[in-house]
């Protein structure tokens, strides 16, 4: 049933190759699409290591990932709903850059960002919403315009299509052709994949196509649109990955201090990013006690479904 190997080229490459090839300087990158879960930290750190410049970051809330990329001087522009540290508050690199006006910010709400991506996903130039009317998001977001509904005459907010160059999506498991299973809250992941020109999948586990095709409803986007597949165990740490590991709250709390001053951040980047070259390095840095502490202790296994005939 599944493809003979000679018919299809593998898309599996290393993380450094994937970032080098599909995230050139000046790219517009959507990341952190599931919001608090499945944030592709490993891929973001590789961008910092490769000294990417002038990126546009797109995402609803990125937790601390966008703050790290701003700290790494990779970012020219941010199109987001919220940038900070979910459980501690401000993201200090972001705050410094915004206050010093070294980055450009397009202020979205989570709904306007979702609708901008959905417009691109659907192949239309805008989406209508009823949010943000009367707000000052209009002053700091040129992707919003008021419009009149052609049927009711009501005032609506039109959100212009947002078409990222690349989506970076962390998943639980993928085959080497880019067909990937994701479970948990999906956030804006589905529209982000459909809206983007190319897609990089970073996966906790690389599995055979038979595993993936056993459940085609669990696939997040069709593999034919994926450009690269990267094996990245613990690639979303410290954010949680359903089925794999819990959220590492301590890391988020520690990052608050680590990002408070440019000097502290430089030190953090040297230790946590620049000194790390692959997932083995990262796991060694974390240590077994910590990874054990984050592992799932209670298991709830999905009821089976039959896709036979």
């Amino acid at each position, binding site marked *: 049933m599944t493809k003979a190997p000679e018919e299809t080229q593998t898309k599996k490459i290393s993380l450094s190759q994937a970032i080098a090839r599909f995230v050139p300087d000046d790219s517009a990158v959507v990341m952190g699409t599931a919001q608090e879960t499945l944030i592709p930290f490993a891929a973001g750190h590789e961008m910092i290591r490769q000294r990417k410049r002038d990126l546009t970051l797109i995402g609803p809330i990125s937790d601390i990932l966008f703050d790290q990329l701003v700290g790494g001087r990779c970012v020219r522009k941010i199109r987001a*709903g919220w940038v900070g540290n979910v459980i501690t508050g401000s993201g200090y690199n972001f705050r410094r850059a*915004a206050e010093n006006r070294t980055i450009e910010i397009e202020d979205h*709400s*989570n709904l306007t960002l979702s609708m901008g991506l959905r417009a691109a996903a659907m192949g239309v130039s805008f989406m209508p919403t009823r949010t943000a009317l*009367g707000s000052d998001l209009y002053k700091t977001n040129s992707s919003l315009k008021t419009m009149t509904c052609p049927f009711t005459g009501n005032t609506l907010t039109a959100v212009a299509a947002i078409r990222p160059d690349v989506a970076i999506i962390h998943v639980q498991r993928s085959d080497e052709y880019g067909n990937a299973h994701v479970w948990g*809250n999906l*956030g*804006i992941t589905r529209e982000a994949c459909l809206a983007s020109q190319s897609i990089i999948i970073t996966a906790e586990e690389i599995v055979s196509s038979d595993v993936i095709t056993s459940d085609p409803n669990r696939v997040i986007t069709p593999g034919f649109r994926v450009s690269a597949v990267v094996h990245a165990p613990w690639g979303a740490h410290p954010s949680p990955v359903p089925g794999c590991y819990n959220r590492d709250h301590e890391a988020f709390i520690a990052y608050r201090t680590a990002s408070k001053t440019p000097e502290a951040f430089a030190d953090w980047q040297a230790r946590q990013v620049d000194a790390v070259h692959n997932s083995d390095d990262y796991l060694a840095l974390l240590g077994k006690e910590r990874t054990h502490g984050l592992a799932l202790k209670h298991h709830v296994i999905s009821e089976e479904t039959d896709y036979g005939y």
Partner: protein
Amino acid sequence: MATENSEYTLPHLMVTAAAREIADGEVIFVGMRLPMLGFFLAKSTHAPNAVGVYELGIVRDTVAPEPILTMGDLPNLCRAQWLADTADLMGLLQQGLVDASFIGGAQVDRFGNLNTTYIGDIENPGTRLPGSGGACDLASLGKRHIIIMAHERHRFVPRVDYITSPGYGDGAGWRRQVGLPRGGPSAVITTRGILRFDPDTCEMMLASLHPGVTVDEVLANTGWPLRVAGELSRTPAPEEAELAMLRRFDPKGYWTGA
């Protein structure tokens, strides 16, 4: 602070007040931090049939089986009623199917407009805050929303520097005029009291004082001449059973510690 039997913290009092804003059977868009605990408390006491909607793409009609710090923690996904897209839940909100939500803020003004984006001039801001997230959507589209924030004079300003989450704009009729379909803030739970809105003028009024707080103290910490409701009440202290529950939801006191 102390009830008859037990010490409680200011966050305990605020969470308990937040929980009391939720009626049984309501659909609540659950926000981060204290509001999340407020929802859990309401759900475990007087509102067992409340449904929680979380913008990450979660609907659940039960409290998470283990203490969590934030809505994306795995226990909050486990045995959820629905795991879906953010847009699906925003659709429920935009349709008018969400009864209430809770929003925090850095600045609020007399008509309940909230700022969580820029303090100072947009072109040359003093402080950049994280931004809207879903807050603008909740304030725009819910049937009502409740604001929770610290009550300080620099936060309670005549006019916010930036409207992240629209309240009543410049007063009665404004929401309809700009095209918002419904809603507006129904209460502001602060570190000093609870404020509500005059149904005619949409202006904020002091409605309840927390234990030990005086009217003068509230007025001194509000940046405009705040009206005081004719029937000013005293915010009830958390009951022992409520405190016990809150200690279960936040055992390390991350959100509700002193």
